[in-house]
């Protein structure tokens, strides 16, 4: 197992290296002069040149890259052009806010999706199966931004049950209950698609296992149906579910964007989006690198868990 983990970890290094190159080069596509944007209306040619030198923009590309990467490795992501504060100070707290939203959404998707999927498979063609299947098909096709708007219209504006924006009530002292209250609508909107995906996968994966010889053998031993389903069938159906859950978790890091925009959730998606529109190169680079890093990490963790559950894979 340790070997496997090391091997996977080593495989991640070149990927992250490639990611850093892509992000760096990609931002060279930004139209307009960053230095001119930075200085505003009455900048002189000399002051623009000075800023270019300060940002290292006058050096050849590869030197700029090495300088940038070296700084990043030391935890220095530069300074945001628009916000004029260190990128790290922005990216870390915003990313944490997104993690909260993503985790809540994923929790909903798993807690609802896995049991519904498994039960649908066990009771194939029952009403639960039908509702689950239709729900999953619908959920997968739902535009998140539309769902978020509908939820806001019904539950925040008309019924007044939940707030429409932010993470905390600015008049109160915050606290967990306040946070949960603000989380409900955004996390449901974000959960719709992962929920659909996980439900479908749990169902198909369980179906496959239930029809396998192994389960037939277990059944033949006379075990109760409950034990058969929840202990034997689910365990064997689990690896692909965990694997896709890992992927969904990763996607949520970017996928919360639409919800963040609509519910003014101060997350990394919203920040990245605004930074992109404002051509804030250091902030875009920092945020993308940060998200990509965690995305790779999450996939790695999911892979390792799957390998742990399914020893056969480690040998490969």
């Amino acid at each position: 197992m340790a070997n496997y983990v090391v091997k996977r970890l080593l495989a991640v290094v070149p990927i992250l290296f490639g990611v850093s190159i892509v992000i760096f080069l990609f931002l060279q596509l930004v139209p307009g002069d960053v230095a001119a944007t930075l200085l505003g209306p009455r900048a002189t040619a000399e002051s623009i040149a000075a800023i270019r030198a300060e940002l290292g923009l006058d050096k050849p590309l590869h030197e700029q890259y090495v300088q940038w990467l070296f700084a990043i490795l030391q935890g220095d992501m530069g300074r945001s052009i628009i916000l004029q504060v260190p990128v790290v100070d922005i990216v870390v707290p915003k990313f944490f806010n997104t993690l909260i939203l993503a985790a809540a959404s994923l929790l909903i998707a798993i807690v609802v999706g896995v049991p519904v999927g498994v039960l649908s498979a066990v009771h194939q063609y029952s009403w639960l199966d039908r509702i689950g299947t239709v729900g999953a098909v619908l959920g997968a096709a739902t535009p998140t931004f539309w769902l978020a708007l509908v939820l806001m219209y019904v539950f925040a504006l008309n019924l007044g049950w939940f707030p429409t924006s932010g993470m905390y009530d600015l008049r109160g002292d915050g606290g967990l209950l306040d946070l949960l209250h603000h989380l409900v609508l955004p996390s449901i909107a974000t959960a719709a698609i992962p929920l659909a995906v996980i439900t479908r996968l749990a169902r198909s994966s369980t179906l496959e296992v239930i029809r396998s010889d192994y389960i037939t053998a277990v059944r033949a031993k006379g075990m109760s149906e409950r034990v058969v389903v929840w202990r034997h069938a689910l365990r064997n159906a689990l690896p692909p579910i965990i694997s896709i859950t890992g992927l969904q978790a990763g996607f949520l890091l970017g996928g919360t964007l639409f919800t963040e925009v609509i519910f003014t959730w101060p997350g990394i998606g919203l920040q990245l989006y605004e930074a992109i529109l404002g051509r804030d190169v250091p902030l875009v680079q920092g945020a993308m690198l940060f998200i990509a890093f965690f995305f790779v990490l999450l996939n790695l963790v999911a892979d390792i868990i799957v390998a742990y559950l399914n020893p056969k894979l480690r040998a490969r």
Partner: protein
Amino acid sequence: MSLKSVRRRGASSASLAAALGALALGVSAGPVTAEEPKRGGTLIVGLDSEADFLDNQAAGGWVTWRVNKNMFDALWTEDLTRAEGPVPEIIGELAESWEVSEDGTEWTVKLREGVTFHDGTALNAEAVKWNIDRMWNEDSEQFSAKANGCTAFSWQALESMEVVGEHTIKLVMAAPYGEFLGKQVDGGCGNVSLMSPSNWAKWGNENVGEHPVGTGPFEFVERVRGEKIVMERYEDYWGADSDDPRFRAPYLDRLIFVPYTDAASRVAALEAGEIDIAMSLPPDSIQRLEEKGFTVKQGPSPHVIYFTLNMREECLDDPNYRKAIQFAINREGIANDLLGGTALPAYGFVVPGNNSFDPDYKPYPYDPEKAKELLAASSCPDGGPTMTWLIPTGGSGNIIPVPIAEWVQRNLQEAGFDVALETYEWQTYLSFWWRGQQEDQHAYWMSWGMTTPIWVEVVSHSKWFAPNGSNVGWYENAEVDALLDQALTEMDDAKRYDLYKQAHDLVMEEAAIVPIVHDSTPYVMQPYVKGYVHAPQNWQDFRTVWLDN
């Protein structure tokens, strides 16, 4: 959770009548209502975009000044505690009194005594000089190029200054500057308000904007980017014991600004009771909020939405072609139908909140037939090439730019023009705008304005061609330039206002700028928000506001 909303609903219906009463009184009598103001509470303000760096002298945009104004005082300010117009009265703030020499070049300013910055530093003539040096004197240690760029108009005539006494400073101008005070109170880019020198020593130009320290009625508490800017009443505020309503301490304990970049979220947050007051709401939602019992206050302001035409483009170099554009646009329709009366149709680019404004000036009423005639008589009778008009998708002061531009586009198409719109996010858009109009970019959108008539010079003098100024459409007329130069040094108010008006009318005669509407800058607030005064300015004074709950 649902309890909160029930309570809110009960409160709103009960106080509806009271709110309407306050509205009626508030229009004429300002903060002095029949009710006794209550001290305390937190006011949450929904901003239309995130504020810049909180460096009062170097930070850009009205939004930032709306925030900073509460923490910073300047030598002079406008009295925003009264709603009377057309422009707010200019009054001394940290300047207690001042004398101007006969020829208009020497200003001797006596400062208020006993004023301290929020960090305890005393305000004296040295501190004032230190601040002016920061904006004006390249050789000073604290000099900020950005502050210098932002306040260039304010100090353009300054030649030297001298600390005469502990609380007296003398400013010497190279030439008389008629709108010196008008520019002193402007907050468009940076404002010439004063920051604490000892606080600057701690943070330097790079970080001082994260730690704003002024002498204003509120002091800074914290800021979370994209989420909130929190300030508290400054207990040692110099005006705290004053009887003068213009300078007294605020009623509010706390003031929180929350950025909602998109208007829909702002409306929702206000409607759901998460914020107390919001600005720049979509006109359709304003009507609806008013029906639901929210208070709406609006009025003339120094604001205009206009397009600059690119004078260097083919067809657009023909006055008939430009005039045809002017006649083709149904400004009344935009102001009254699309914007539901929250804006006035604009027939000139001088703003209503300005001493050179003439409400009867209407050279280009909506006349599609005349537009077609003029187009036929122009050098491009077939309508010319497909024009590219650049607009922002949002941003401070732009109301609803895309629908407005779509409306203009439709009007122009009806008259025989062919217009393609290109939209950009506000920050990106601004970076284009500052560069000036490039080839094949036929018109640029902009929305701003000033209470000082020097505004006419800012947008139409040929010495302010982009990127050194705001003449982005390359309009050039020696006669206009001469009038503006004459106005600059004219010390007689009436004569000066007239010169600016003449210059403005000439620019309009040549149809170089296409005004669209003047926003009435509606603010919508919860019915329990009392005492709010809508002064004719793009930022407001929150010291008069109190909460009735």
